[in-house]
């Protein structure tokens, strides 16, 4: 059971209050009609599955109902940071899949 810091509420709260919302920092193409099926498919379906650092979205579902980002180690479940939507992570992996 994780203990998660909501960057909007500015409090550590129990995992029960949150729901995970998938990989973070996926941007919707601005002109979907202008890109190929393959590019669109990448946006739709392709997701990272690293062992190690992962940037992911969470929803403070039973709290402020804000979506925010977290940098979490998928192997140890450590949460390095949480940050607001639109902000960039401070903790990043050097290479994809590296922890």
């Amino acid at each position, binding site marked *: *059971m*994780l*203990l998660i810091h909501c960057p909007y509420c500015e409090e550590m709260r129990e995992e029960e209050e949150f729901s995970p*919302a998938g990989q973070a920092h996926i941007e*919707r193409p601005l*002109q*979907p*009609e202008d890109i190929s*099926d393959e590019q*669109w*498919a990448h946006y*739709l379906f392709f997701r990272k599955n690293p062992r190690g650092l992962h940037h992911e*979205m969470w*929803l403070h*579902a039973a709290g402020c*109902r*804000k*979506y925010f980002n977290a940098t979490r*180690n998928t*192997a*140890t*479940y*450590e*949460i390095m940071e949480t940050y607001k*939507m*639109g902000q960039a992570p401070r903790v990043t992996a050097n290479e994809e899949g590296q922890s």
Partner: protein
Amino acid sequence: MSQVNRIAGSSKRINRNRTLTFSFNGKEYQGFEGDTVASALLANGVDVVGRSFKYSRPRGIITSDSQEPNAIFQVGSTQATTIPNPRATQTDLYQGLTASSTNGWPNVDFDLMGTVGKLGGSMMPPGFYYKTFMFPQSLWMSYEHLIRKGAGLGASPQQNDPDSYDKMHHHCDVMIVGGGPAGLAAALSAAQTGARVIISDEQNEFGGSLLCSTQSIDGQLPSQWVEKTVAQLSDMDNVMLLPRSTVFGYYDHNLVGINERRTDHLGEHQLQSTRQRVHKVRAKQVILATGAHERPLVYGNNDVPGCMLANAVSTYINRYDVVPGKQLVLMTTNDNAYKTAIDWHQTGRKVVAIVDTRAASNGDLVNKVKKLGIDIFFGHGVIEVKGSKRVKGVDVAPINATNHSVTGPAKHLACDTVASSGGWSPVIHLSSHTGSRPVWNEEIAGFVPGATVQQQHSCGGLEGIYALSNVLSNGFATGAIAAQAAGKGDGSYVGKAPKTSDPQEDASMALFHIPHSKKTSRAPKQFVDYQNDVTAAGIELANREGFESIEHVKRYTALGFGTDQGKLGNINGMAITAKSLGKTIPETGTTIFRPMYTPTTFGALAGADVKHLFDPARFSAMHKWHLEHGAEFEDVGQWKRPWYFPQPGETMQQSLERECLATRNSVGILDASTLGKIDIQGKDAREFLNRVYTNPWSKLGVGKCRYGVMCKEDGMVFDDGVTACLDENRFIMTTTTGGAAGVLQWLELWHQTEWPELEVYFSTVTDHWSTMTISGPNSRKVLEKICDVDVSSDNFKYMDWIEATVAGVKARVFRISFTGELSFEINVQANYGMQTWKAVMAAGEEFNITPYGTETMHILRAEKGFIIVGQDTDGSVTPQDLDMDWVVGKKKEFSFIGKRSWTRFDNKRDDRKQMVGLKPKDPTFVLPEGAQIVFEKNQSIPMKMVGHVTSSYYSACMGYSFALAVVKGGISRKGESVFLPLSDGTTVEAEICSPVFYDPKGDRQHV
């Protein structure tokens, strides 16, 4: 029977003034307050307490703690209070306790399966179940049933648990697991910094190993130091002491789960408090002081009752004044176990011999034993035990541990008890729960906690520190360090560590498996895991058959699969695997320990969250009326919705036909309050709707409603409903009952993550409104009677909404239809719902207004071909598949959600499953929902399936049965026949048709 093994000792752990009577396997016995069931049975000289799982061999008590594999009982006198599989060694005795063996039939002393087992046992090698019973697989369940009946595990209670349970949540600076010398020292040291400390221990009192130790601390009995320390801790406001509290799990981010047994030791169904309480502790720092478990040695017939752990024997003597036999043989690989011989000797009973596997030892305890005149056989092992229901003697022979051989003739010694010690294994279970891999410590021949990402410390026996003075100083130091890490104190212990002098000990020997003069496969059985009857020979056979990974060995042999989770046998099993594969133990590795540390009852985990508190139910404001009018209910999400309203004597089908006909011919009323309602406001609300719905919203005027379909980005339909324009910048969106929460979350997701620049606000108002839909040709006449606004067709058009006063209540009335009939949806503030409903019912009386439920709603909408998202769609259906391209905006500027995906190759295939209607050839036959559809009737199995039925009913209005279905390329196949092979072997035929069966032009809803 009297307590033949209870001696006139001086233990303060039992209260001889309070005699407790209990029964075991139907016989009455007596023990004392402070006893466990195990100590009381041993006091009474009970040898056989169960039968083994596979071979049905008689088994006795081996341990005095959570490792116990044999004394696993059914405890409790009724089907409501009975508990399966608690360990007798951890079950406190109370007056009237009723226990029985969980296995052995007809009884443990004469066991029918034992006879079978003796013959069948040799035919039950490891992997036996896989090899013998897995084929045909369909019979596995019945095999398993028979095996379990013969061998036996505990039985579940057959009646509801009468006890209550609860939960508490805590935050603390330092959580200490284990109240032995290390834990108590750590608690004292941490608490003196002012840190908030919680210390829990699984036993009935704090002290751990000190409760049965004879080594003095500060010149006093160790129990006196415990008493003093516990008193000191109790006096501190910042310390919480939890005895009888097992930490069952250590979870991520320092969450510790504790089960406190509050009344189990007092008797069954005690009313003075909750029976058990789960504490969930979020600790800044966790100190694991879980100590170590003694390891038994693996030798021939080591399961005959009377074979015990050395330390368990000492515990029964020192803590319970019980000597579990008359003549002891002790086998050991270390000095420490010599204490057991000394303890036994001091009771006046005979120590026959000490069998020490080492060549020599000159430790203090060894020399003390020598002075007592006890025989010691160095370089020897007990290779085999004689006896069946009790040890009668042992064969002792010189051994060579290096090449695993017996080097000389065996000598027979008569005895009735064999105590063995192969050293100690730190209790690493909890530290492993969070994924930390234990590491092998060569010096102590045991695993200790490895690296972890938790804010975790460990001390004492868990770290392989065994000498009491070191354990205490390590505990004090660790407590201070943990407190400092939690922000309290400077990291050093300010008090004075108590004085104690440890006996000097010679090195112990890393030995696990005692050789026999015959090779392992021919020798008498040498048990490793008693609970699953896993032997050394079985493990070696598994290794020979190619199972080399310890995880595979575990699953193939069932090593460590019992309720003891391999506490007693796992390290020995790993050592035997390592030896037979020519590897070291660290190379072989350990299996992973997971929660629960010991079995925890469902009651404790559920706490108070049972029955109606388990999952809340939601009711509309008119629920009481529905109850009074005999409604049958259906669960839709958490909502209880009326399903249908049977009249006396009616079948469900008769009710539905009556409700349908009444609605089509006069007027019906539906409680639609549960539909999700989201209030959407802001200057960009309209643009937002354009982006999330497939159809356009730019021109929807105030006072108008529009049906909309929402897709996911992959183009698949995920919700639908009507949205009304309340004001230029304000809309009310309705969603499906089950989809309300998901839709709100979906809107918030897009707004917060992609389009924060849009000024739009969402608020769920589902519960603010009561909604009743009156539907049917007479619905206007009903409304006119109680509404202050002209609702004629000229003034109130289809897909309009108006504000009006209905039955004296301010209302929003929507002229929308889900039945295809003239319909009005009356929305009033929820607390006026019942009053308005009753007024509508009164106004409708002259038209025989008929309440209907969700089932009639489903039939009526299906007759019109209206979809229900989640029933007719499944997340793989586009609006085009539904033949609903009319709901897709063609000129919308923004590339709304889902649009781009419709031009993907897969979504353009013309053989996609498309929604159609089906008319069975037999007009009275209702196709089963979910039935598969094929084009060709005569195909070999597996047939080529081309679709399935999504909704299917009998229509009383049309007089025939009909269905909605998805069929490959179905839209262009109207008029063709399809076939439905059913589960009963018959095949029925149906014709593909338009999904709109009733009033295809829509005249009725427009009147």
